[in-house]
C-alpha cells in the first residue's frame, strides 16, 4: 500500500513541476451602503525546481465564481396571440457570478476534455442535471441564461486579460459588479501547457455585507415581524413628518 502511494507520488511529481504562488489585492469584499462594484487584482508567480520547459508556451486561466444556486429559466411562446412563459428548465446549480480571465484566446489555453474535467468555461460551470427530461432543447435554455447574465455583467469571459511575463509572473484585474450576492467566491488559477492543465491553485474571496446592510439583512431574517413593524413605523413617521413640514411651510 505504502509502495503504491510512493509510486503515485513519484508519478505526480512532474505535474507539480510548476506551481502557482498567488497574491490577491483583497481576499474580502465588504458590501457597504455605497458599494458599487469592486476590482480584484490577482497577481502571482510560478515556482519551479527545474528550468522553464521550452516545448509549449505556458498559459494562465483565472476564474472567480460566486455561490452556486438553483434557478429556473423560462421561455416565452405565443399562445392565442399573447407571449406567455410556456416552458421552464430547473437548473440545479448555476454560479451567481462567474468571471474568467485568460492569458491568450480560449482555444490556445485549454482543450475540450480538460475544460470538461475541471469545469472551467461558462457553460460547463452551469450544472443542469436531468435537463433532457424537462425540455426538448435544454441547450437553448442554458444559452439564454448565459446570454442574460453576460448582458448583466455577471458572467464574463475576458480573453487576454491575464498579463504573463517571462512565463513566470502574471497579473489580472477582475471587475466584480455592484449586484453581487453574499458568499464565498471560489477563486481558481490554472496553469496550462498545450491545452492541458499542469497546475491548479485554489483560494476564496469572502463577499460580505457590513455595517447597516448587515444589520438590516440579519434583522429581516431573524426578526421578520420586528423588521416589518419597523418598516411600517418608518413609513408612518415619514408620512406624518412630510405632512407636518408642509403645514409649517404654508403657515410660515
Amino acid at each position, binding site marked *: 500500500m505504502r509502495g503504491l502511494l510512493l509510486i503515485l507520488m513519484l508519478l505526480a511529481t512532474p505535474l507539480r513541476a510548476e506551481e502557482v504562488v498567488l497574491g490577491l489585492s483583497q481576499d474580502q469584499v465588504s458590501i457597504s451602503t*455605497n458599494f458599487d462594484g469592486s476590482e480584484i487584482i490577482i497577481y502571482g508567480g510560478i515556482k519551479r525546481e527545474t528550468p522553464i520547459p521550452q516545448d509549449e508556451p505556458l498559459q494562465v486561466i483565472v476564474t472567480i465564481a460566486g455561490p452556486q444556486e438553483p434557478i429556473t429559466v423560462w*421561455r416565452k411562446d405565443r399562445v392565442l396571440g*399573447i*407571449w406567455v412563459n410556456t416552458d421552464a428548465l430547473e437548473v440545479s446549480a448555476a454560479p451567481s457570478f462567474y468571471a474568467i480571465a485568460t492569458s491568450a484566446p480560449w482555444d490556445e489555453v485549454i482543450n475540450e476534455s480538460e475544460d470538461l474535467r475541471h469545469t472551467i468555461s461558462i457553460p460547463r460551470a452551469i450544472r443542469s442535471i436531468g435537463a433532457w427530461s424537462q425540455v426538448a432543447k435544454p441547450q437553448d435554455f442554458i444559452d439564454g441564461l448565459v446570454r442574460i*447574465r453576460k448582458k448583466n455583467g455577471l458572467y464574463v469571459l475576458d480573453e487576454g486579460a491575464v498579463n504573463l511575463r517571462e512565463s513566470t509572473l502574471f497579473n489580472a484585474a477582475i471587475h466584480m459588479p455592484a449586484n453581487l450576492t453574499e458568499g464565498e467566491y471560489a477563486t481558481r488559477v490554472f496553469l496550462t501547457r498545450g491545452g492541458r492543465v499542469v497546475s491548479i491553485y485554489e483560494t476564496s474571496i469572502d463577499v460580505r455585507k457590513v455595517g447597516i446592510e448587515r444589520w438590516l439583512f440579519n434583522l429581516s431574517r431573524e426578526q421578520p415581524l420586528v423588521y416589518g413593524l419597523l418598516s411600517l413605523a418608518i413609513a408612518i413617521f*415619514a408620512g406624518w413628518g412630510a405632512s407636518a413640514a408642509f403645514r409649517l411651510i404654508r403657515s410660515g
Partner: protein
Amino acid sequence: MQIYLPIAEVSVNAYLLLGLGGMVGVLSGMFGVGGGFLMTPLLFFIGIPPAVAVATEANQIVASSFSGVLAHLRRKTVDLRMGTVLLIGGLIGAALGVAVFNYLKSMGQVDLLVKLCYVVFLGVIGALMFIESLNAIRKTRSGAKPKRRKHNWIHGLPFKMRFRTSGLYISVIPPVIVGVLVGILAAIMGVGGGFIMVPAMIYLLGMPTKVVVGTSLFQIIFVTGFTTLLHATTNYTVDMVLAVLLLIGGVIGAQIGTVIGARLKAEQLRILLAIMVLAVCGKLALDLLIQPAELFSVGTAGGH
C-alpha cells in the same frame, strides 16, 4: 450616488429612486391612488427583483397614503365612516384574494393572470372614466347644469347608514361589496387597489370626487400596511433601504400632489387619471402582444 440595497442585493442610483418616489407621490396625492400599478413596473425596469419590488412598494404606499390622508383630513375631505365600511370589506376581500392567488399559483401561470388582470381592469376602468369625464367637461362647457344623482335600486337596500361627509344615505351593502371586490383584486394584482376603488366610489356609490380621494387613501393605508407585514414575515422581501429612498420622495410628492389636486376641477382630475391608466394598460398590452427581444427569463427556483 450609488446605494446598495441589502435585501434586493443590487446597487442603484439613490437620486433616481428619490425622483421615482416623488413622481408617484404626486400622483398619489392628486388622484388618491397608491401608485403601485405604476411604481412596481418601474422598479422591475431598473432591475429590482420582482418579489422585492412588490413587497417594498406596499411599504412605500403606506407612507405616501398616510401623508396624503393627513392633508385631506385637514381639509375635511375624508369620509372616515365610509372608509371604515370599505376597509372591512377590503380586508375580507384581501384574505379571499390571497387564497385565490395561492390556488392559481399551484396551477401555474399566475404571472400571466396578473398581467391580464392589469390589462383588462386598467383598460375598462380607464376607458369608462375617460368617456365619462370627457362628457362632463363638454357639458360644463356648453353650460348645461350637471345632472343630479338619480335614485336607483341601490337606494332600496336595507341597513341604511348616513355618511355625512359624502352627503349620502345608503345601505352599507354596496360599499362592503365594493370593498371585498377591490380587496380580492388588490391581493391578486399586488397593489393597493386605489385605481379600482376611486372609480367604484364615484360611479357605483355616487360619492363626490373630492371626498373619494381622501377616503380611498385612508383605506389603502391599512390594506398596504397589512400586505407589508405579510411579505416581511413570509417572503422576507421588504427592502427597508429601498423603501426609505422611495418614501422620502413619495411623502414630499404626495403633499405637492394634494395641493395640485385641490386646484384642478373634478372632471380634469378624472380625465388625467383616465389617460394615465390607459397609458399603463397600453404598455402592458403591447408587452404581451409584441414578440419580446429576449424569449428567456431567469427566476429563482420554484418561483415565477
